[in-house]
């Protein structure tokens, strides 16, 4: 017998141990998310994948699928709340899409388009964040960090390096690197690391290749994020 739950009225099959979002993705149903990446353990921090499970809100990336549960995701109320979360992410950082080299390949931007975010709505924080260009081949632009911790998990769980960590609490939370100097050049980070290629926004960037992919050929030019949430970035 196949285990199933319903998601917005659709019957979604799942296997033992799968979370709601894993089962939904396997069935080709998109649930908006940012900190979730199927290659890593869930983190449950961005809250964008929040759904209603039997009427109660829960993160679909951490909630185990159970047979017979009724899940709501694509509703006006939930999408309004997701849009607000996105707006808060935008104003907490410095996200200037017009001149960002990640534009068109950015999951934050693509999710905002997907959820019809038309403005930041809230006052911009304009935090003063530095750019770490110390590494000869990679750049860290902390202005765009959404604290998803994917680089932390990739460096720790895949690269076994612990190059990245989240430091601080609440609004003072920030991404740091594992070096006394605080500079990427003084860590053992390298371009082959998983952490170098996992950032969903424009924080960890390979130098000197920005804008090499023309408009029209970038990942989310070709199809919306709902059609391919984790596209393989094009080689330059």
């Amino acid at each position, binding site marked *: 017998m196949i285990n199933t739950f319903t998601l917005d009225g659709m019957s979604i099959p799942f296997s033992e141990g799968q979370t709601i979002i894993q089962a939904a993705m396997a069935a080709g149903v998109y649930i908006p998310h940012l900190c979730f990446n199927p290659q890593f353990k869930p983190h449950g921090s961005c809250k964008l994948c929040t759904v209603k499970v039997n009427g109660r809100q829960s993160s679909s990336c951490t909630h185990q699928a159970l047979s017979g549960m009724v899940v709501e995701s694509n509703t006006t109320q939930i999408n309004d709340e997701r849009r607000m979360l996105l707006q808060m992410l935008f104003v907490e950082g410095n996200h200037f899409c017009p001149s960002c080299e990640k534009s068109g390949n950015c999951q934050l931007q693509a999710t905002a388009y997907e959820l019809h975010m038309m403005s930041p709505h809230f006052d911009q924080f304009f935090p003063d964040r530095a*750019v770490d*260009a110390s590494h000869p081949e990679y*750049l860290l632009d902390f202005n765009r960090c959404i604290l998803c911790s994917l680089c932390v998990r990739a460096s720790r769980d895949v690269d076994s390096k612990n190059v990245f960590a989240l430091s601080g609490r609440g609004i003072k939370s920030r991404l740091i690197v594992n070096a006394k100097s605080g500079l990427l050049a003084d860590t053992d980070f390298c371009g082959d690391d998983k952490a170098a290629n996992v950032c969903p926004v424009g924080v960890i960037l390979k130098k*000197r290749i920005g*804008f090499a992919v*023309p*408009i029209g*050929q970038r990942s989310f030019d070709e199809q919306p994020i709902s059609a391919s949430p984790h596209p393989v970035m094009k080689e330059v």
Partner: protein
Amino acid sequence: MTSHLETAANLENLRRIAIDPVSRVEGHGKVTILLDDKNRVHQVRLHIVEFRGFEKFIQGRPYWEVPVMVQRLCGICPVSHHLAASKALDVIVGAKHLTPTAEKIRRLMHYGQILQSHALHFFHLCTPDLLFGFDSEISRRNIAGIAEKYPETARRGILLRKFGQEVIRHTAGKRVHGTGSVPGGVNKSLSIIERDELLKDIYQMVAWSRDAVLMVKELHHQNPELYNSFGAFRANFMSMVGFDGGLDLYHGHLRGRNANGDVLFDGVDYQNYTQLIEEEVKNWSYMKFPYLKSLGRELGWYRVGPLSRIQNCDFLATPLAEIERREFIAYGGVMPMHAPLAYHWARMIEMLHAAETIKDLLHDDDLTGSELVVSGERAFEGVGVIEAPRGTLIHHYRVDEHDLVTMCNLIVSTTHNNQAMNEAVRRVAQQYLQGHEITEGLLNHIEVAVRAFDPCLSCATHALGKMPLEVEVLNEAGERLSYFARSGAGTHAC
């Protein structure tokens, strides 16, 4: 020279008229006029009150971001900033010679922009003044009025601009604020489909551009007294010319002439522009006043843009435009043309040249090539210069060993023309305001002079020609005697 009108000898008992804003390129400017009780003009200033800040906030950013970021300076000619920055960064990445495909794609992008910008300026912004009259009925002095009275003219203007925008879209990825040019080259070439799509319409664009030259030329011939004298003043002029002396809006070296047309300097490598040009700061304007070092502050100011370029080069490499250039030069006689309204004629010759150049490029197979980017020995400082629609545009950057920008200096076309625009406004004030009661039509004469330069004052004029204007007449005690305002909603006196 009207420099005596920059600052009144005695401010007592003068009343002040402020045209604020005169609307400007992506921001605001104003004209202030000081008159005595007999309405004699004592002081006229075009103030630029913009503050953009790009030179500062580009600092600390990675250099490859620069061409995309700085183009946001402008919504009308972003390609100019995109390409000038790219050219400066070509130096930084050691790309001494771009691939043929990269250079031709950039040229195509640039000439597409020249076409669309010149069409926008002439048809949308200026034909209402030129075809209806400077003080004609305000309600129809706009592109909608042109569309009603001269529908074919309006249609051609719109389609010429559209074609230029399509050229930009195919080369930069978007009609406005694309990403096509990168340090060392471009990120795309043309597909055969894209090339053929442009080829389909280019011959019509050439024909319409030629008709536009004939139209503006006819206007000069019909009323030479007005067109040759309105706001006219003598000035040095400067532009980039090709290495062969011909008009080249994309690359070359700097040449300057004095008001008689004699060459002041030639063959100047723009990497050394700081040896040629210095900028003066005046406490009444946020825009600097560039001048030629060799001539000093008083005599060294100059003019840039189409009127300078057409008279500064030795020839135009495209046949139809070259015929028109020769006629233009012949019309001026032994001396260069200095009349601001001649800008329109020169601008339309450039538009024709741009259309012909695009046609020639579209027949070049290099446009569809695949070699897009080159690099070489890394440098830490670079200057890029391009002839933007409005004139010479200089971008200058320093980049550190970590690839971050540490210094940026931009001298935009409108800045070069700062003193020249002030001269034109002063001349018009002398010619038309002196001793007259102020009317909306007279105010528009001031704007006509400013518009001739096509400064980026165009943001507000996009509102169907109804640039917001306010004029206050105060007595010596600062009390308001009369007030005249014009907004997008119409004109009213209070």
